[in-house]
């Protein structure tokens, strides 16, 4: 088969409606749509403040075909723990409880609740769709913002000076049964990971890279392309971790140069050739470390 035939592997049922309020070309609804296709209708979504709080639509509308519980920024994993407990008290052990949080609600503000839930191995799926800044409130940096990126709080004269937080390693360190990265550019890989997670009990964590046209400053049509470039440059490798110890790559990573990926995004426009070389070196170093992990376990 010379063409990648994806259609056969994507369920046709839609649990997300048109008319949602995501920006044109947004990766976040692509991610939600695929995740719900894999989870099916017996799902409750718990959503701390994030872009999706808006995307879901103003009251009395909802763009989801499953129950969606909006909650406060820092509480996603805690509320989901409670929803799961309440369902179990009513004898419902089938319904999947999923947190749907952005990078701000995961890497920064919701991290303590997530860590607590992971420590208790709550029976929830936690999805972080990561667009690498607080995009909904006007593109403020988060601890998911990559080094060198422009945001409104890290202007080009003083761009982001910290490396992106390694959230997967943090979750893996909690020894939860399943943690994985995924991308909107690889829908089949994403679906397979969600199906796998759904079949496991305990805390499951999915970190989904979700490119953002206004926040990353690129043309609306390039979301999937940038998602693909992020994987193929090894900037955002596709991985899964079982029980915190078994690390595995789930895709081929060509190891393309990072420069074209960075140059496609206005948020990196100010980077000098030396700085891009530095990004390349850090991507290479992180990749080497990942390869050791995959080869040796933790």
């Amino acid at each position, binding site marked *: 088969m010379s*063409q990648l035939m994806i*259609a056969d592997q994507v369920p046709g049922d839609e649990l997300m409606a*048109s008319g949602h309020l995501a920006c*044109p*070309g947004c990766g976040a609804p692509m991610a939600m*749509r695929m995740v719900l296709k894999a989870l099916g209708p017996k799902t409750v979504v718990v959503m701390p403040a994030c872009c999706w709080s808006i995307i879901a*639509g103003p009251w009395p509308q*909802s763009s989801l075909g499953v129950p969606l519980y909006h909650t406060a920024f820092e509480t996603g994993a805690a509320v989901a723990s409670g929803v799961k407990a309440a369902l179990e008290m009513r004898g419902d052990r089938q319904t999947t409880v999923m947190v749907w949080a952005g990078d701000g609600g995961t890497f920064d503000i919701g991290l303590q609740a997530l860590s607590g839930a992971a420590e208790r191995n709550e029976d929830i799926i936690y999805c972080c769709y990561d667009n690498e800044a607080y995009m909904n409130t006007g593109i403020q940096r988060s601890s998911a913002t990559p080094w060198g990126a422009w945001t409104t709080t890290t202007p080009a004269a003083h761009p982001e000076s910290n490396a992106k937080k390694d959230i997967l390693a943090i979750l893996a360190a909690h020894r939860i049964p399943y943690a994985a990265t995924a991308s909107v550019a690889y829908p089949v890989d994403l679906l397979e990971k969600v199906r796998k997670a759904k079949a496991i009990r305990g805390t499951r964590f999915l970190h989904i890279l979700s490119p953002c046209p206004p926040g990353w400053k690129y043309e*609306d049509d390039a979301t*999937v392309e940038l998602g693909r470039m992020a994987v193929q440059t090894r900037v955002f490798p596709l991985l899964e971790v079982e029980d915190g110890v078994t690390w595995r790559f789930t895709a081929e990573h060509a190891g393309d140069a990072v420069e074209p990926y960075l140059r496609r995004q206005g948020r990196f426009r100010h980077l000098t050739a030396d700085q891009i070389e530095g990004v390349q070196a850090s991507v290479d170093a992180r990749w080497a470390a990942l390869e050791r992990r995959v080869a040796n376990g933790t």
Partner: protein
Amino acid sequence: MPEAARSRRVPELAISSTSTLVTHTGSWKYMRPEYHDRVAPCNQGCPVGIDIEGYMALLREGRLTDAADLLLRENPMPATTGRVCHHPCESACNRRELDGAVAIHAVERMLGDFALERELAAPPVSPRGTAVAVVGSGPAGLACAYHLARLGHRVTVFEAAAEAGGMLRLGIPEYRLPRVVLDREINRIRAAGVTIHCGVRVGSEDLPWGTLLARFDATFLASGAHVSRPLGVAGETAIGVRAGLDFLKEVNRGGRPSIGDVVVTVGGGNTAIDCARTARRLGARSTILYRRTRAEMPAIAQEIDEAEREGVEFVFLAAPVGFTLDGDRLRAIECTRMQLGPPDESGRRRPVPTDERFTLPADTVLTAIGEAIDPDGLPLAGTGTAIPTDMWGQTARAGVFAGGDLAEQPRSVADALGAGKRAAIGIDRHLRERAGAPLEHREPDALRLGGRGNLSMTRWRDDDPVPRVAPLNEVVTYEDLNPAHFERANRHEDWSLPLEAAVGGFDEVNRGLDRPAGLAEARRCFNCGVCNECELCLIFCPDVAITRRNGHGFLIDLTYCKGCGVCVTECPRGAMLLTREGLS
């Protein structure tokens, strides 16, 4: 709580009661995605004008009969062209940029053999009472006759030789084109309603031109170029020096002339290669003498490779200047060393003689430096080296059309088949106009595949069986594709007869691909420019605005589409375009 009270205030726990479908986000967009079928470069590159992409798409679905039908609409002899065509389609193939062109020739051959095996034939057509004469039964004549018959004209082909086929039978050796294949393809053309009279030389006492032109409503001249160009070197008339084409004709009729142990063929085209490989099969040491280098040889590259494999030797940058004779018996060919100068009008570097001389021993020298037409035998005055025609094949004389090697066009089987089809359309147009019943206005450029390719019979007849969505007559380039969605897959290479068996006789050397391999090769096709319902647009749409349409293709719900263009960018094959909203 009563329903009326509930609606008056927001409850303490706000619960949604409607979906976002009430929000028509389509009003945000300033760009609009549209599906447009465009033209694959192979289709434009094919001198015959075949919908190659179309039959590849049908083969992907396993629809062999439908694929063969689509192919036979444009090409009456696919089992022949699959074997002997120089396949410029493959040079145009976008897959070259990824991992090698699709082996279109091998797929066509597999499909052509399938059509012969199943005896697939054109549906019968009721004749319209117009009679057309075709002079010459080579590929141009046969193609013209076949297409005219399918268009409802009564066609009679006159062939001077004892059997139909022209150069396909007389010029091309059997190890490239088994006669059983040629015979069966000609039989299918006969079955389409074409009458072929062999052994009739038009213009002779048997059938003077005046009689012919008076008896038929239109005439297509396709008698080819059979006059071998002389070398223009003293001693050319010696025993042992002969025209390569005459040699091939003799062998192809079953003759086995005595040529001695050492044969030198002069020339660099397909006739030269055919002569040299045939000489090998007659047991001779065989050498090709060519005045330029391998890179400039006009012969099909694969044929040059095969010749080399079979032990044909090449002497490049050398031209004959004389012959060493022993009485009137040839002993050797005298040559001068050439060097390449500045490019000539053909774009190739012109060979320039040097002072260096050498001789090659030779029992036989075959000349294959090109063939000319015989203008004296034609009903057209003042014809030089080729008959001029317009794009419909119409000559200066009303109702008389011409094509193939007679006309000004590249001398290949595919170009001849394409010219035959062009003339069939031209004659159909001419006769319809004469009868006062022209087809609706058909722009010549709109009939051309991609605007620069050959005319499409399907477009002329306006009966395309392939569903088309807002088609544009533009060729899709590699830059229009999204190669990320294609897996690398090696091209399937033809299977060839082992060397000893090949040189030991006239059995077919290239055996092509078997059906499973041919079908697998067809799946390598990108289907450039034509939606094959891969669904990537639907899957990646962030706004769930794309749905399957009943029957074929997709619908974009412009009420919700925000015009991001992800579908257009991710379309693997360039079958979508982004247009400015409201200005399309």
